[in-house]
């Protein structure tokens, strides 16, 4: 099996560089104890490394080669980024630790500029707005649909730089989305637990609608159809339907897990509210 030989795998320098740098900073950051932020607990570290490993699997293994020929493989890549890597990274909440990997003499001036510099105030406001639940939902949803527009999709197949941008957007906006519903220690997401349940459900519908469109299409949309043949000998239409199916069912696993977990957490909150209520505390209506 030739593909088991890592020497035959595609080399994506920017991806590997990004992973390496992030990983090294994380390790260094773990060695520094700054104030009241201890290094990450074991399971968060596992989540972090799994997230990075998923990115490598998605972008730097034979899956990448396959994705140039098969729609369903490309879909799997994207799902690994949005549905596996992004939530894992959010669960890991590594940002402070990665940041601490930088030496203090770099951190201090950079932080000062980002937080205080007046010319960046517009950027700060924009980012604050972007990370509100409704905007985050809309932007990540629009991004998802945009890259499936045939013209945009075909462009990523031809132009490797655009392809990287696409993957970066999927990962970045995925992280933004999952941050709305997964608490990143020590911070908490803005939405209440029940709101998170509804949020995740609505997001799932957005992706199901796209999957349905692709599944029921009567002809292929993308440039894969121009290839003389595909691995496995499937037709372009079957390839597209397969990708749609993958998006639909396996692609919903993360949504389902978060849905269920938030539902449980909401029940816990309701229980607490119920116990807090005693007859003495109920208003007697006159």
């Amino acid at each position, binding site marked *: 099996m030739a593909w088991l030989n890592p020497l035959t795998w595609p080399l994506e320098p920017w991806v590997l560089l990004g992973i390496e740098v992030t990983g090294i900073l994380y390790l260094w950051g773990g060695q520094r104890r700054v104030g009241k932020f201890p290094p990450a607990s074991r399971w968060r570290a596992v989540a972090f490394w799994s997230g990075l490993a998923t990115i490598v699997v998605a972008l730097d293994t034979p899956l990448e080669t396959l994705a140039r020929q098969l729609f369903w493989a490309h879909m799997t890549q994207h799902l690994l980024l949005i549905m596996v890597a992004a939530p894992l990274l959010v669960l890991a909440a590594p940002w402070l630790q990665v940041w601490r990997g930088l030496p203090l003499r770099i951190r201090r001036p950079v932080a000062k500029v980002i937080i205080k510099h007046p010319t960046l105030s517009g950027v700060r406001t924009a980012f604050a707005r972007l990370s509100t639940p409704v905007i985050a939902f809309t932007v990540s949803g629009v991004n998802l649909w945009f890259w499936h527009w045939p013209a945009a999709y075909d462009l990523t197949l031809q132009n490797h730089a655009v392809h990287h941008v696409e993957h970066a957007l999927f990962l970045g906006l995925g992280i933004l989305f999952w941050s709305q519903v997964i608490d990143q220690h020590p911070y908490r997401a803005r939405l209440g637990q029940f709101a998170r349940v509804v949020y995740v459900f609505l997001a799932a519908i957005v992706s199901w609608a796209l999957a349905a469109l692709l*599944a029921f299409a009567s002809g292929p949309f993308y440039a894969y159809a121009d290839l003389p043949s595909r691995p496995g000998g*499937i037709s372009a*239409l*079957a390839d597209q*339907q*397969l990708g*749609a*199916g*993958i998006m*639909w*069912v*396996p692609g919903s696993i993360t949504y*389902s897990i978060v*849905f*269920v977990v938030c*539902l*449980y957490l*909401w*029940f*816990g909150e*309701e*229980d607490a*509210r*119920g116990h807090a*209520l*005693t*007859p003495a505390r*109920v*208003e*007697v*209506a*006159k």
Partner: protein
Amino acid sequence: MVVSERRLSLPNNPITGIVLAIPGYFAGVWLGTLFGLDDDQNTGIILGYLFATAAFLIGIGFLNYPLERLFGWQVTPVTDPAENTGIGRFFRLSLDHKVIGIQYLVTILIMLLFGGIGAMLIRTSLLVPDSTITPPGNYISLIGLHAVMMIFITSAVIVGPFGNYLVPLMIGARRMAFPRLEALSFWVVPPAAVILAAATFWGGFPTGWTGYPPLSVQAGQGMDSYIVGFALIAVALVTSGINMLATIIGLRAPGMTWTRLPMFVWGIFTTSILGLLAAPVLAAALIMLAMDRTVNTSFFLASNGGSNYLWENLFWFFGHPEVYIFILPAFGIIMEIVPHFARKPLWGYRTGVVGLFGVALLSWFVWQHHLFVSGIAPVLRPFYMLSTELISIPTGIIFLVVLGTLWRARVWFTVPMLFCMGFLFNFLIGGISGVYLSDVPTDVTLHGSYFSMAHFHYTIMGGEIFALMAAAYYWLPKMTGKMLSPTIGRIHFWWMFIAFNSTFFPLFIVGLLNMPRRVAAYNPDLVGLNRWVTISAYFLFGSMLVFAGNLIYSWFFVARPAVANPWHARSLEWQVPTPVPAANFDRVPVIVAGPYEYGIPNARPVADLGGIVGATGGG
């Protein structure tokens, strides 16, 4: 506009309804012929049914409120509290949810009798391996009528009687959110049943309950009964859904947090979500079918730009959630009743609720498993196989919740508890046979055979109907004020359980031996099994007669009055007197504990019924 005291002078009752419906039907038929369409009178018949139903509803009194709003008259309360006694109120439009519950109960049981007779005719026809008893054209019509009647029944048999009666009592409310909508959801059911039965005058319909085109477009006038009857049931599902959900969301008593809600209410809640959202899709599909049959559009005719797959996808997008509408209330009942008779807290309350939601959610994703052999894109089939198999996980979770509750419990084996045990046995078999059918390779062989027929009878009859019996024995003492005889109840249970399994288990075998559904003629080698099944079916029908006999005996002969809480249960509906007062609670209760806290030291009673001082009136 001056407010006036004028009221409509027509007495509002079913007699008026029928009296208006008859000319209404003919008016519709006449109107249909006016258009001069080349449609075999389908327009006339459909309009006739619709006008008859509308006239019936007007006679019942549904137009009073909109007309009074429109002309600025004083809106008259339909039920004068002083009139709220006597048997007459069950035959009139009532806004009291308890009356609506009883109306549903009686109507559905009568419909069940007719559906059951249809089943007996089918089984009789299968005593011989050819079509001598029932010719093929009649046989398929018989199947269709039995099936559609049963679908109408099972959509509403738990939510209608028990949901209506009990949900406000269980959440501490004195009324429902939209009493008129709820009454409407009941009053469209008798017309739907009558319209369906009317199909026999036109020779029935040849498509079975699935109504696939092009046959359904080309079929005779009996098909119109299917369209209008099913559309009325869709209306019932939507109006009942709006009302139930609004009631549960908005009218919970103070202290009734979501985690203190009884499991039965969660079952009704999830069912109502499904009904609310799935029924409109069916309504759209039925309108398209009606248009194809009347004005000759071509939604479903591939030769003219349409597609039969359009119907199949729309129908099953409704059809699969529909079957979960059947079973979710049943799950709610089992999870409700078992803790009260195991005298243990419900094990895994939150898990059970998540299980119900999991089933409800996944039910939207599996519909194409009905279409594995219909020619859908082959590469999509594995995904529907996966999603269908996944739905067994939340179902299994619900089973685990029940089993966990029973674990190490000292069970009080009352008749309701026996039926719960029967449910667990039957639904296990039914559910596992569903997993077999979810696999594409198996389904390709078994689709259209008696295997799938046995699967859904095990789940619907073995599941939902057994849960119905559990609910009946458990709650009828509260609803009717009389205990049902436990001795006859036990005879009923064992007779029904044995007869049911004897009837339907061999059908798995018969299905594996390639006997197809919906066909009167079969391989003569299978005569022995079929005769066994038919005799068992007669016994099963007999068990239902035992149930009817128990009702009659207990209500009219012995008439032992029930105490307020014969089961010594904790939940709120048992804390009110029997018979239940008109406004349910004297004072709005304050809920202070969950309903399943048995055996917990110092557990508070579920509610403070002294309620909130000064809360009177309203509702």
